[in-house]
């Protein structure tokens, strides 16, 4: 193991990225949160309670699954799936939500709020709040309440209040805006459970650390199941970047492992058509409390984004990812909507697993590279969530596309041609 590094530094920076860019009202509460996190996360009692909940309540460790039929189909490297889709509530998000809800309770906060895009972080927060007896309010863009409707119902059944956000692009970005407005107003009794490695310090490091367990387990499991702790490649999708850092952190010092993040390529390369911050459209900016790569125009106005996957449809990325990209430690690529739907189908039919559309983006890249690798090599994919929430979206996406093009959809999926902007429209229309 290489020497431990302090990431971020004491001011919350990962090199030039990160920091705390928030209204003054939140500065003292963030200092308090950082102190509480530093103090409690080291205490044995806190660690034990978290570990026990993750084990007996959430279902850790999640399995590492050797996807033999998918491997066979692709005809190359052995594909292993880290099954975060099997975690309670159906995505990795619960690791962080339970951790932060425990911290909130420890800090004496009676109310938690959360933003959500795909609805998985909202469901995880609502679940953790129910478990610990906290009041919970979840902010969700109107567009996302339509395309992830199942998760809205789940949150409500869990006793949370879901507040649709009808401003801006009506997606994850605007849900975070509204959460920050709530927090700035109610900060004395409220903890904000931010759902990814985004936002002001201490969130990027705290969320990363609550998810590190993903990669730590995967190393142990690989050792047992494949005889090595080091896959050749590890792949994860990157919205804010929490499932990716959850998987990658355990491998960062293991230089044998190539780490690849997959962003949402959406429907095209122009600003507004994708959420690929590491592409040409991304530039250094400050959004939601952190200095990082942001999709924006020349005037510093934040750009609209598009992805078929609500959880990747966001204009900024966690600051630590940007530093790791600068250092060449993580490589970033993208998968577009059509490819993601194709990978969704592929996993369903070869393995009997419906992946979340977010996770399907990671699978796209696995399917690209595995055939060029040897059968002795290993590709580890973080299957960050399950696809139940996306069933309606996928069906409607396909119906829309079939009515729009004479080509059979399987052909389109294979060639990966960009889909007409109408792909965005149906979601909007669905809300009416």
């Amino acid at each position, binding site marked *: 193991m290489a020497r431990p590094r302090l990431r971020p530094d004491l*001011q919350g*920076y990962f090199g*030039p990225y990160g*920091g*705390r*860019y*928030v*209204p*003054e*009202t*939140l*500065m*003292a*509460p963030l*200092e308090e949160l950082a102190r509480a996190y530093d103090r409690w996360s080291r205490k044995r009692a806190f660690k034990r309670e978290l570990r026990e909940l993750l084990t007996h309540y959430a279902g850790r460790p999640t399995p590492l699954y050797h996807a033999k039929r998918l491997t066979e189909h692709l005809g190359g490297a052995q594909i292993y799936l880290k099954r975060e889709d099997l975690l309670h509530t159906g995505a990795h998000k619960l690791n962080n939500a339970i951790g932060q809800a425990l911290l909130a309770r420890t800090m004496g906060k009676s109310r938690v709020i959360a933003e959500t895009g795909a609805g998985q972080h909202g469901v995880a927060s609502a679940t953790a709040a129910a478990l610990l007896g906290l009041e919970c309010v979840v902010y969700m863009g109107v567009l996302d309440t339509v395309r992830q409707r199942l998760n809205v119902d789940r949150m409500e059944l869990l006793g949370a209040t879901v507040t649709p956000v009808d*401003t*801006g692009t009506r997606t994850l*970005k*605007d849900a975070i*805006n509204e959460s*920050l*407005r709530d927090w*700035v*107003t*109610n*900060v*004395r009794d409220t903890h904000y459970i931010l759902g990814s490695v985004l936002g002001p310090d201490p969130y990027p490091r705290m969320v990363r650390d609550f998810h590190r367990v993903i990669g730590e387990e995967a190393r142990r499991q690989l050792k047992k199941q494949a005889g090595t702790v080091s896959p050749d490649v590890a792949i994860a999708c990157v919205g804010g970047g929490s499932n990716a850092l959850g998987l990658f952190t355990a491998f960062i010092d293991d230089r044998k492992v190539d780490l690849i993040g997959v962003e949402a390529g959406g429907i095209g390369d122009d600003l507004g058509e994708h959420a690929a911050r590491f592409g040409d459209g991304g*530039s*250094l*900016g*400050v*959004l*939601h*409390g952190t*200095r990082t790569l*942001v999709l*924006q125009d*020349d*005037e*510093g*106005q*934040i750009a609209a984004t598009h992805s078929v996957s609500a959880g990747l449809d966001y204009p900024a990325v966690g600051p630590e990812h940007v530093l790791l990209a600068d250092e060449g430690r993580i490589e970033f690529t993208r998968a577009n909507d059509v490819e993601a739907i194709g990978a969704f189908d592929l996993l369903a039919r070869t393995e009997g697993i419906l992946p979340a559309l977010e996770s399907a983006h990671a699978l796209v890249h696995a399917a690209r590279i595995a055939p060029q690798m040897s059968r002795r090599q290993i590709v580890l994919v973080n299957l960050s969530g399950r696809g139940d929430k996306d069933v309606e979206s996928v069906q409607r996406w396909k119906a829309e596309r079939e009515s729009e093009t004479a080509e059979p959809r399987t052909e389109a999926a294979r060639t990966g041609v960009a889909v007409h902007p109408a792909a965005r429209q149906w979601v909007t229309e669905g809300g009416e």
Partner: protein
Amino acid sequence: MSAIADVFARCRAEKRAAFIPYLTAGDPDLATTADLLHAMAAGGADLIEVGVPFSDPIADGPVIQRASTRALASGTTLSGILRLVARHRDRLDVPILLFSYYNPIHARGVDEFAEQAAASGVDGVLCLDLPPDENTPDDFIPAMRRHGLDTVFLLAPTSTRERVRRVAQYSRGFVYYVSRTGVTGDHGELPKELVKETRRVRRKVNLPVAVGFGITTPEQVASVAKVADGVVVGSALVKLIEERTGDDGLAAAVEQRVRELTEPLRR
């Protein structure tokens, strides 16, 4: 002494608080903003906060959010706002404080921004989401100093003693005390602790202290003016602008409202 410091010194000599109206530049367009700046000055503004619209105004309530949306829809840019200030600087007898989120300034580059803002006749800058902290990679504060721009920072009811000290240390011109934990906009009554809290802050800060967020009526202006060096009214005026947009009497209505709001300060 900076023009902003000058205003507070003059008001102090007159034994009254300064009146500081806010508007969002470009709402509904920059031509109207020019008229409104003159209207506010004529109505009795001592200093004007010119808001730079931003796509993601996390510290603003619905009124200023809508104003930002309208301003961006009309094509308002930071450069356009600076050109507007430059064009009207000579005829406007009040200092201008730019009130912005950090990203539009960051995107320009802080040094280039500071140079252009100073050249346009802007007197100071307040970034809502940029608290004064060393180690910010962009050296915002030194850039503003180099170009002679005042840096106004915020204090809030949650600010610790250490943060009060830090904000006082890095602010120039005045310190802006946020009346409540919350976003901009009218919330009915002002918080009961406001008088006590403002006094607490004033004792610790060696600069004028202006109070804003949620101040709406002349009565509220009067009560805040008793304990503060300046009173900021934002959303209440932006709401008036929203209601009267398209109306020939808009500028006159804004001037009249500013006059009503400053009435208690002139008594």
